């Protein structure tokens, strides 16, 4: 395993860890807004590290650039998604939990 492969494996594992953290966050956080916060972590960090890991072991620069393009689009849409859903949730009357756990 050359150092490059070790580094990319480390990135991949870190990315998977963030995806796990995001999923657990969406499952266990008390209200909509916290879950939204967990969701965007998966988008930018989880996927970002996976893409970085794959870019390291990709054969050509074109592949690496396309991977970063995919990540860029996910970033853009994730930024808008988070804002839109939060506003929609507010408009629909979702109450922030304020620390106490909902039943």
């Amino acid at each position, binding site marked *: 395993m050359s150092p490059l492969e070790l580094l990319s494996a480390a990135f991949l594992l870190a990315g998977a860890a963030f995806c796990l953290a995001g999923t657990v966050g*969406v499952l266990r956080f008390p209200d909509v807004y916290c*879950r939204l916060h967990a*969701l965007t972590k*998966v988008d930018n960090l989880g996927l970002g590290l996976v893409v970085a890991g794959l870019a390291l072991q990709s054969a050509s620069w074109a592949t690496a650039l396309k991977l970063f393009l995919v990540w860029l689009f996910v970033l853009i*849409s994730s930024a808008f998604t988070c804002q839109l*859903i939060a506003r929609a949730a507010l408009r629909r009357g979702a109450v922030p939990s304020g620390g106490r756990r909902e039943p």
Partner: protein
Amino acid sequence: MHELRTGLACFLLLNILAGMVRVIRGPTLTDRFIVAQLFGTTGVGVLVLLAADAGRDALRDVALVFALLAPVTVVAFVRFAVGNEANGASAASDEEPRP
């Protein structure tokens, strides 16, 4: 390397399955919708991991399309799924007009 990538793809698939719990338990439509977005991004992750195998370069285009079209459902959700969450009615359109 192939084993690691496929193993991680499997791990992300299990993540998607774990998300089903929130879809079923989620009190409101917004919670369910958030999980749908989570699936979209995790799906892109799985596709990108699978695309690294030999001969499967086209899967990166699929991941690109997923990433590009994710906001479409969100915009539709924001525009259409107007409902009152206070009484847990997820999306049933209520009778009284909304401000």
